[in-house]
């Protein structure tokens, strides 16, 4: 039984990473209706920027804030320069654009900071949390930040004018335009916010997986999976999905014989697909009704 609780705790700890990333994924899906394959790379680049600032002597929180601002405007710039012109192009062309962006950011980061693994500091310390060996204070801090972000996003979308405008622009663009919302800038804003949330995720994950240009590869897959499992329309679902994927991955690795590290990912994905076959809109997503 103790093994079981310990594995669940460890699962929650890794799940926090996925939840963070899933939140960023859902954020951008709300704004642009696509899954951004380059999201992980954007987060990785932001994390490198904060690392560089700290190398130059900036304090952690100073670097944190500057990176947030940088990522926000970086996200907006990417949307304005690269994806606004593609707004009318077919969906699949947009997906190809995400893949191109992925290749560019990965390769540029590799050139600037090279591919060696770097240590990344944590503001929360890494001593055991409440006497448990499985969750460190950093991981507890990460869970805390994720929950804070979620609450913040909820209030932003529910109780601010601009949040309302973003929701309107995403769900019924034409009517939103008629009541005077600049839908094109709402999309840019969505990109900026997604990039900023991604950078927070990156900075929280980096102390665990270490900093290098390919650090996000695996995390992003789990992030997508978590977002889809929870339902792409629901930020709360994304976070819960993240924790569920983390817990399940750990339990499968421990209890199903023959499942080593290699098979963890396929099994987690298989579970998600099974869930989707039963509930096609994800656990917390709203079913989409088509107008005929």
């Amino acid at each position, binding site marked *: 039984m103790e093994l079981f609780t310990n594995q669940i705790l460890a699962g929650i700890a890794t799940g926090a990473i996925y939840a963070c990333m899933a939140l960023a994924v859902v954020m951008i899906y*709300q704004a642009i209706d696509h*899954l951004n394959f380059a999201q992980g790379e954007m987060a990785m680049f932001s994390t490198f920027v904060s690392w560089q600032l700290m190398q130059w002597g900036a304090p952690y929180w100073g670097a944190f804030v500057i990176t947030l601002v940088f990522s926000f405007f970086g996200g907006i710039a990417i949307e304005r320069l*690269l994806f606004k*012109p*593609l707004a*009318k*192009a*077919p*969906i*699949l*062309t947009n*997906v*190809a*654009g995400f*893949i*191109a*962006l*992925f*290749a*560019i950011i*990965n*390769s*540029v980061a*590799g*050139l600037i900071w090279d591919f060696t693994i770097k240590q990344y500091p944590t503001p929360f310390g890494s001593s055991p949390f409440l006497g448990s060996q499985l969750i460190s204070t950093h991981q507890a801090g990460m869970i805390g930040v994720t929950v804070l972000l979620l609450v913040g996003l*909820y209030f932003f*979308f*529910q109780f601010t004018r601009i949040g309302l405008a973003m*929701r309107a622009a995403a*769900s019924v663009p034409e009517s939103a335009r008629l009541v005077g919302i600049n839908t094109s800038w709402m999309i840019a804003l969505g990109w900026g916010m997604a990039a900023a949330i991604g950078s927070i995720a990156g900075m929280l994950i980096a102390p665990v997986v270490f900093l290098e240009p390919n650090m996000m590869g695996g995390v992003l*897959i789990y992030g*997508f*999976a978590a977002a*889809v499992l929870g339902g*792409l*329309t*629901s*930020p*709360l*679902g994304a976070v819960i999905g993240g924790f569920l994927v983390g817990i399940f991955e750990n339990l499968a690795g421990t209890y199903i014989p023959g499942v080593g590290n*290699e*098979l963890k*990912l*396929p099994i987690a*994905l*298989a579970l*998600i*697909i099974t869930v*989707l*076959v039963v509930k*096609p809109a994800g656990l*917390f997503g*709203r*079913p*989409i*009704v*088509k*107008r*005929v």
Partner: protein
Amino acid sequence: MSAAIEDVVTESPGVIEAVPKRAMTLGTGTSLVMLGLLLLTPLFVKNFIIFQMTMLLIYGVAVLALNILTGGSGQFSLGQSAFYAVGAYTSAILMEHAGMNYALTLPIAGIICFAFGFLFGQPALRLSGVYLALATFALATAMPQLLKLGYFEQWTGGVQGLVVTKPDPPEAVQSMLSWLHLKMSQDMWLYYFTLVITIAIYIFSVNLLRSRSGRAFMAIRDNEIAASAMGVDVALYKTLAFGVSAGITGVAGGLGAITVQFVAPDSYTITLAISLFLGMVVGGVGWLPGSIVGSAFIIFVPNIAEGISKGLSGAVFGVLLFLVIFLVPHGARQVAIVGQQLIGRFRKN
């Protein structure tokens, strides 16, 4: 937004815009010129280039298969590398363990992949859009791990993979050529062998999309509800599209195994599936002749990028890809249509 309970009502967006049936193929003249080029070029180039041209055809077939699935029936797949891998392993195992003739392994690879794709299409029926993308993506990430499993190792060779012997040109061809004092290299034989199969698959695909089944695919792509109202068995045709696409990809995989002379789990990762997807977009979704253009893109552009800058090859590749999708968002199809209009105007004058 999680608080909003009401359902979202959207206009049903098609995955891709409709492609008129006539625009799906090339005119007779252009086809003959292409065929002539494909037939004659190998006679004048080195063996390595012949090898690359063979790979061009093989990836062309794989892109074509994805094009039938996405451009034809409107379903999205990031899992083509899994079908390719199954085809490649089927051919390799039959050749190396059962000592079967390489040409005979291809139809078997095709049939096994057809069955696999058809079965995979069943659960995929419930999913569409990003969800289907994730499901097929899962298949693509799982495949290399499954091939590495110790349980299958005596057949698959585990992590090491299998080495496949390269076929010689048949005696009849050699003796015929020796009359002309010529000798055919293995590479050249394999090229023409691949070319014949490619042309056969191309003709089959064009005719398939023109047939009753093809019209059913396109009806589902354009409006699923309307299609089912008109009596199209949506479930059957959607799974059938998966099966046909997987089967063709399997044949391409088998050819790939014979040409590269080696199969290993890590040759068939998600990167291959993404490449095939890019090939389809660059070639033009739903335009079958574009498959070969897309295949050329995914084979040659990474090399060109490497040539321009070693350290930044990924960035150069990304920039080139962006250039293509900015200039021609509809891929090579758009170029072909513009070219056709220009020629039309030229003829009128």
